[in-house]
């Protein structure tokens, strides 16, 4: 809660900073806000808000994922200083919107009832609709904003219908109360089934799992890259963690009824996304499909029906995924800004021209592919090891897909190291902030890859 | 550019003070002004029912006088038309035929005499120019109408009816005094 207050407060300050044309100080203020929020997240002082625990509980679960979101946003903010430097009018607004979205993410993560989850999703989504369409003169950005908005609103409708059904079935919106009802079997089964299915559909829309994923490649592609990285990391983290929490808090006991659906969705996401990703020509679209496939892997955690182990698994996975995605987007943003292209050819010969960036990108891709000694490996490892009990065939599908995914992740590596650059003329300039973010993320990936327990033991 | 008169005011774009910028005082002032007018004596009249009294030398619609025998005084000399600054008067002269002596005082008369009331500025110069004291401006108000050609008054309107003679003595007196 303290974190939300800080973020919202600084969001307002950023809005004012935008009005009074203090463009230089916007990024530092944003970073300061997040650092403060981080400090207060890691310190457990939320006892102040004990009166509202039926709404809101900043427990270790929430704290852990909040930290992931905050760190991701921090890095994205650092990138933003460069990315938005030409944005005269709305830099402050965009930063503020990201902060507000972050408030939504934290709300979702710490929600204790359906209402707060819903509200959190909306607070997270609405700024993002705008950020997606924030490049007003660019048709692609417009399209992304529109699509994201329509899909988001549609998914919200479905989500609410599901929530209404759950409310009807149990008469409760409190997660713990729903759980009690489920345990006591004092609920209406028909309504509950409809509710659960609707919730699954809605959340699959939000985390872009197949077959509800079709919007996400377009949206990722059209959205300005900085916000794409925000979407791919913070939104995914918050949405998935909430999905996990909601289902494994309330419906574990009746898991048999819905895990099959999730399993099918997971398998579909992995297969469809990985196969489609191979045929992509744009890096951003590839990353979008990659994110869909990662959603598929993450769904394994739900199937495990094991809250305790599952939360560590998805925490590690999401942390690894976020770091790798940000690292990849850091490099990509830099290249895209200077070349204006987003196909794979822009990476050609990067290994020779910019060692640091190429190495960062390589580490990121290796991590996304799940190669050991990178964070991605342990993420996958955790997920596989908790799901292997429940759905062995699904884990095998996941493994097959990890192998397929190598193909497209390595396209980038191949382009960077093994292909000759077409345009030597364009000399890439690396701003120190980009280099810093690149180094930080790649260090983080490797450190988590070697010692994954530091992430988990921070909280549990 | 130098102004021709020194009545023009320099536009000032000075920044308004806070109290001015909320306009509240100005609005109240304005409302005070309007409410003052609300209680003022009304300046309009309930016109057709009530008419405003006119001054003695009021110059209204023209009239072509007849003499006491009922003969028209105008001899179509054209001096009024010449004098008219608005060129509102036109006329056509004609010879008096035998047996028309009771109608026209002299041998020459105006067979057509028109005044365009839309052009006329009611200056009274025609009256002054007339050597036969045939044309006078009265205190009658030219009545409104909807078509322009109705404002070209011919002799049918202008010439004085014997059964309803118009007393011009007041104006004549005034003219004589001058």
């Amino acid at each position: 809660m303290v974190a939300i207050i800080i973020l919202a407060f600084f969001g307002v300050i950023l809005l004012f900073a935008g009005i009074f044309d203090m463009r230089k100080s916007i990024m530092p203020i944003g970073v300061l806000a997040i650092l403060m929020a981080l400090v207060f997240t890691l310190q457990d002082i939320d006892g102040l808000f004990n009166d509202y625990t039926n709404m809101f509980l900043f427990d270790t679960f929430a704290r852990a994922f909040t930290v992931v979101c905050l760190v991701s946003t921090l890095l994205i903010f650092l990138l933003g200083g460069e990315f938005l430097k030409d944005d005269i009018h709305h830099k402050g607004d965009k930063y503020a919107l990201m902060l507000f979205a972050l408030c939504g993410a934290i709300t979702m993560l710490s929600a204790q009832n359906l209402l707060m989850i819903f509200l959190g999703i909306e607070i997270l989504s609405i700024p993002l609709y705008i950020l997606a369409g924030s490049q007003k003169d660019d048709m692609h950005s417009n399209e992304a904003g529109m699509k994201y908005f329509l899909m988001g609103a549609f998914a919200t409708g479905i989500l609410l219908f599901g929530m209404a059904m759950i409310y009807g079935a149990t008469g409760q919106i409190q997660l713990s109360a729903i759980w009690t009802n489920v345990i006591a079997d004092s609920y209406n089964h028909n309504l509950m089934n409809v509710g659960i299915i609707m919730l699954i559909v809605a959340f699959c829309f939000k985390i872009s799992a197949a077959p509800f994923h079709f919007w996400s490649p377009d949206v990722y592609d059209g959205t300005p890259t900085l916000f794409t990285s925000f979407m791919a990391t913070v939104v995914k983290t918050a949405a998935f963690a909430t999905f996990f929490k909601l289902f494994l808090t309330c419906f574990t006991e009746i898991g048999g009824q819905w895990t099959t659906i999730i399993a099918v969705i997971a398998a579909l996401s992995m297969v469809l996304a990985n196969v489609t990703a191979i045929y992509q020509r744009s890096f951003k679209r590839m990353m979008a499909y990659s994110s869909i496939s990662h959603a598929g892997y993450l769904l394994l955690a739900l199937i495990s029906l094991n809250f305790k182990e599952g939360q560590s698994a998805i925490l590690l996975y999401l942390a690894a995924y976020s770091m790798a995605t940000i690292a990849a987007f850091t490099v990509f943003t830099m290249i895209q800004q200077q070349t204006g292209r987003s196909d794979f050819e822009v990476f050609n010969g990067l290994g020779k021209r910019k060692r640091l960036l190429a190495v960062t990108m390589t580490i990121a891709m290796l991590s996304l592919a799940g190669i050991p000694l990178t964070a991605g490996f342990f993420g996958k490892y955790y997920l596989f090891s908790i799901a292997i009990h429940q759905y062995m065939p699904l884990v095998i599908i996941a493994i097959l897909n990890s192998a397929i995914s190598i193909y497209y992740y390595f396209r980038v590596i191949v382009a960077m190291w093994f292909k000759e650059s077409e345009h030597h003329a364009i000399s890439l300039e690396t701003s120190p902030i980009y280099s810093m973010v690149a180094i930080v993320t790649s260090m983080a990936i490797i450190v988590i890859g070697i010692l994954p327990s530091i992430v988990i033991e921070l909280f549990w | 550019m130098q102004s021709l008169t020194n009545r023009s005011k320099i536009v000032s774009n000075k920044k308004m003070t806070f109290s001015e910028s909320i306009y509240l005082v100005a609005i109240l002032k304005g409302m005070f002004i309007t409410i003052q007018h609300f209680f003022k004596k009304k300046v309009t009249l309930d016109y057709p029912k009530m008419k405003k009294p006119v001054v003695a030398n009021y110059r209204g619609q023209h009239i072509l006088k007849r003499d006491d025998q009922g003969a028209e005084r105008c001899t179509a000399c054209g001096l009024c038309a010449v004098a008219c600054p608005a060129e509102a008067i036109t006329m056509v002269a004609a010879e008096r035929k035998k047996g028309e002596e009771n109608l026209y005082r002299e041998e020459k008369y105006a067979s057509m005499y028109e005044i365009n009331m839309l052009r006329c500025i009611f200056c009274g110069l025609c009256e002054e120019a007339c050597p036969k004291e045939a044309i006078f401006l009265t205190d009658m108000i030219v009545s409104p109408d909807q078509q322009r050609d109705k404002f070209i008054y011919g002799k049918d309107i202008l010439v004085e009816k014997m059964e309803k003679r118009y007393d011009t003595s007041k104006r004549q007196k005034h003219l004589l005094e001058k």
Partner: protein
Amino acid sequence: MTEVLKHVSIDYYIYLSTILFCIGVMGVLIRRNAIIVLMCVELMLNSVNLLFAAFSAYRGDANGQLFVFFIMVVAAAEVAVGLAILVMMYRNTKSVDVSLLDKLKH
């Protein structure tokens, strides 16, 4: 006022809301005008509202009605943002046709 609760079964409201919800979904699927699509989403939300309100009234539990209140709050914000995006799109394409949104596919 409460006689409805005695004479009408809750099932009626469940089915009514479901039908309205499905009409909304159908509208989202078959219309190309972005504004209408957005309106159909609103219709979906309203059906949910009705369902929440009905459950809330039948159970005598205030939570449902407050949920509706918040849904309305959110819907208002969402519509504002959505229409802004829509107007922006219209400025660029002079159309609100959703099916024109395929530039990114190429």
